[in-house]
């Protein structure tokens, strides 16, 4: 099967630069095009795509863009129309796109409009007998490799699975694609950070700190120490710039109206019904369940855990090091050492 590839991209909040996930998709597109000896096109969705196109000129790919004020807002109706127009113009057999919120929202709909099919959360691509895509099933419990005989085939790539493309900006030859917009009934009014003392979710952080329900359980003195736990956790985040993940049980306590760790929301949750973030290292504290260790930690590099339970079956084989200790005592010392080092 002779293939041709289109990579869909979009700009970030600045409106000028492509998102990191988009640049990762560009790398994936370049690699796959080289493996298949296939022509590559890159489509850009932006209010003004001049700078974004310039950053891609060295790829040598055919550059297509839709631009205009309507595309400044991430919104289903306008983004789907934009991506549909790009795909029709490129007439590619394989369409790669970053698994960002913006393109995840619309890609399936676009695939349907083009009579194509979509697979998402792709972590690896290979060109063997045909194009093969790797993804996870059952929330990162089963890994599968799949292929499709039908085209166009849309593949949404998980972020962090490819290096971000970087090249010298230069004047680019860009094809402007006209889009027929439907009636727009949705207006995006902006972004809102969750109600919490500080932004604790940092996807770009090197490290993930996982807080488990043990932080709010009764301690050795028979009392709970939730405020102290909160201070220790936030102190560690401040000192290291780490991102905060939580087990479902701890987040649920907050949802039930118990003022446990007020800075935690469901957005922090990792595991079966939460995120599966990618960080170079992770430290789990007071977690005793399967979820954080098996599902939430799937894509964490170096993993360490502090637990009171020497027989916790979920840390064995999942963490590199498990410290059998009281997390309150250890984290207080860690924070003190980190502060001293900064001073």
């Amino acid at each position, binding site marked *: 099967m002779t293939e041709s590839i289109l990579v869909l991209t979009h700009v970030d909040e600045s409106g000028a630069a492509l998102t990191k996930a988009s640049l990762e998709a560009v790398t994936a597109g370049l690699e796959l095009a080289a493996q298949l000896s296939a022509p590559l096109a890159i489509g850009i969705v932006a209010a003004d795509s001049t700078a974004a196109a310039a950053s891609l000129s060295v790829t040598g790919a055919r550059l297509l863009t839709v631009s205009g004020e309507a595309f400044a807002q*991430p919104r*289903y109706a306008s983004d789907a129309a934009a991506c549909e127009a790009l795909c029709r113009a490129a007439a590619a057999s394989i369409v790669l796109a970053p698994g*960002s*919120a913006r393109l995840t*929202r*619309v*890609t*399936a*709909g676009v695939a349907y409009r083009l009579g194509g*099919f*979509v*697979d998402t*959360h792709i972590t690896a691509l290979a060109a063997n007998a045909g194009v093969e895509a790797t993804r*996870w*099933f*059952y929330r990162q*419990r*089963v890994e*599968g*490799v*799949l*292929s*499709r005989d039908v085209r166009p085939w849309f593949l949404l790539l998980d972020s962090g699975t490819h290096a971000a493309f970087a090249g010298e900006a230069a004047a680019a030859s860009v094809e402007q694609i006209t889009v027929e917009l439907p009636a727009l*009934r949705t*207006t*995006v*009014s*902006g*972004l*809102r950070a*969750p109600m919490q003392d500080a932004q604790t*979710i940092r*996807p770009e952080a090197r*490290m993930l700190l996982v807080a488990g329900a043990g932080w709010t359980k009764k301690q050795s003195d028979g009392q709970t120490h939730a405020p102290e736990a909160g201070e220790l956790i936030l102190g560690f985040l401040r000192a290291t710039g780490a991102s905060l993940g939580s087990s479902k049980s701890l987040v*649920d306590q907050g949802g039930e109206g118990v003022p446990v760790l007020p800075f935690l929301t469901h957005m922090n*949750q990792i595991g*079966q*019904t939460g995120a599966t973030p990618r960080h*170079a*290292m992770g*430290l789990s504290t007071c977690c005793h369940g*399967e979820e954080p260790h098996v599902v939430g930690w*799937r894509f964490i590099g*170096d993993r*360490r855990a502090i637990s009171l339970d*020497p027989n916790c079956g979920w840390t064995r*084989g*999942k963490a*590199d*090091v*498990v*410290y*059998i200790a009281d997390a309150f*005592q250890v*984290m*207080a*010392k*860690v924070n003190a*050492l980190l502060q001293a*080092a900064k001073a």
Partner: protein
Amino acid sequence: MANAVHIVVCAGIVPDPLQTLEPVTGPNGPGLKNEMVLPAVLDPWAASALYEAANLAAKNPGSKVWLVSLGPKAKLQQVMMTVAQKVGFELVPIDGPIGGFPDAHSTAAVLADTINALPGLDRTKCLLFGGWESATRGAGVTLQLVGERLGITDQFQGVDEISLREDGSFEVLERVEGGKHQVSVCAGTPAVLGWATGNLPEPRNNPQVGMANMRTIMPALQKAKPAKLEANGLRYISASLPKQQRTTRVVKDMMPDQIAAELVAWIGAK
């Protein structure tokens, strides 16, 4: 009843998250070992959608909630014994396969055809709810495909909140990157909302709600139409458990300050 809405919740059933899952390959492709005997639950994010739907319907008199679910009849019946006690809804069961390996496009086609044929559904008042991803395939595309097939072009994914306004418009909070919500205002129904966790706790079991639901659930299950899912050119090369067993060093004999020093060195070294 200016804001009465017709909410269709699409929700699948999934193996209980606490079960150990083992993939096996059969003549029809991959599946799970002992899939039919694994205890099942309503898909967690779709369950959030159902609870949010019931809450929204309760606040807007004249509203109605349908629960459209595709799965083996026996499994659906088992799951409904619990779910029916939570909130009121009309079940629309479809007798078909479950699991993470069937193609989402086929599932969406069956769901859309079923919703299209729902008696009493006013499409202009329709809010199509579901989980933004399932706990099986986790593709996050089924709801969008159903929406496209129904011609609904206002779609939101990773929704944590909807606020219906007097004029029929509504504000939606969608999860986006960096732990933020995107705030959008839609002029009104119809719309598709793929829910994340929302803000509501799981409702307590209410036997009266359960009895009222079961009066219609059992006859609906008996009449469930069978559905066959097409492969759409999808081929599985492999499906396996990850082989990432780590050699764990269990440290039992270090004092907290020694552990802290080791951790700080580890953090610094990286």
